């Protein structure tokens, strides 16, 4: 550059190299998603329901809760999952007589290689 010999083509090649390397790395990584419906807003409350998606594929969850991989959201965090959505606190405004669905849902993610 100091010698004023760097061409636009060479500069483009330098800039593109890390990006394409990064892109290649991401080609082999997928997001796993874990829905955990808890009994309260606390991350250590017992899980009432779950769904697991790995690399875009549904994973069959055992019907028996004792066989679920985690019993609380905290257990999943300890195992490397990251919480990306917490229970929606606005649901506190829903009257008790009109309780809706599973109100205390944690959504977690992790990245895994395929």
């Amino acid at each position, binding site marked *: 550059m100091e010698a004023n010999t760097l061409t636009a083509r060479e500069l483009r090649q330098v800039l593109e190299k890390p990006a394409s390397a990064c892109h290649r790395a991401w080609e082999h990584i997928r997001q796993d998603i874990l829905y955990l419906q808890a009994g309260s807003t606390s991350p250590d409350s017992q899980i009432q329901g779950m769904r697991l998606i790995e690399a875009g594929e549904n994973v069959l969850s055992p019907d028996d809760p004792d066989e679920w991989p985690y019993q609380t959201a905290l257990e999943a965090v300890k195992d490397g999952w990251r919480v990306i959505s917490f229970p929606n606190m606005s649901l506190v405004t829903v009257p008790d007589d009109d*309780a809706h669905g*599973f109100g205390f849902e944690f959504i977690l993610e992790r990245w895994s290689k395929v």
Partner: protein
Amino acid sequence: MSTAEVPETWDCAPSLTDSQVLEFCKNGYLMLEGVVPDEINRRSMEYCATDHPNEMQGHHEPTGILQEDWFRSGVTLNPTAAAAVRSLLGPHFHLPILMSNHRQEAPFPQLGWHVDGNSQYSCALNNLQVFYLPQDTPLEMGPTQVLPGSHLVHNKAHFMAHLDAIRGAVPTVAPAGSIFLTVYHIWHRRGRATGHGWRNLLKYFYWRTQPPRRDWVMEDDFRFSTACYGSPMAGQLEQFRDDIKVAEMFMWLCGQHGKFQNRGGQSWPLPGNRNGLPYGLPEGLG
């Protein structure tokens, strides 16, 4: 095919007791195992496997089966099932007008949790959704899963689509000839089938035509004051909200909804070891 005129309504003696009606209010469903005779099950299976050109939806809506004398006497007017329906819907309940068949060849995957369309969420019980299993339906044949008590928790099908395994869910495993009754808005889904062969599950509907009243089999020792109103869905609701919802539904069925009250705190219908009749117990109920 029947040549006689098909009645629109039906009446018979009720069979359920206070405790059984209350259990229905808690769970939202009632299983009657093996109440249909084998011969009727066999004919039903045969009907379901046969092409009926006049059926609008082919095998999925075999409504013509409702016109068959043998089916009417064995299934829709089955003495055990009809007496249970009579207990919950009162006299002269309206008979089914449409037959659905969740007919599917196993193996098949489970489907998503949902409440059926046109649900009317309230404590009132003005209709019943009923399922008839004409064949043995073990776990391998993907019986419907229900979530006991979920009729107490308002939900919408499109907001349930991401749910999968749920604690407390029950597969309705049952022998051939079983009939189960549900509150229409109970959460349910098709279970996964790992077996092989066709599975039939007939679904139909009854309606109330008369105002509710406590005209089922009354128990001498039943007490509104000390009855337990707790539901399996307690974990999904604010504490004691299930007791309140179940008591309200039971009172509605008794024709006493106008008297239902919740005075808050430790009052009826919450459980507890009180020093007498619970405060808040509606007048005239022991």
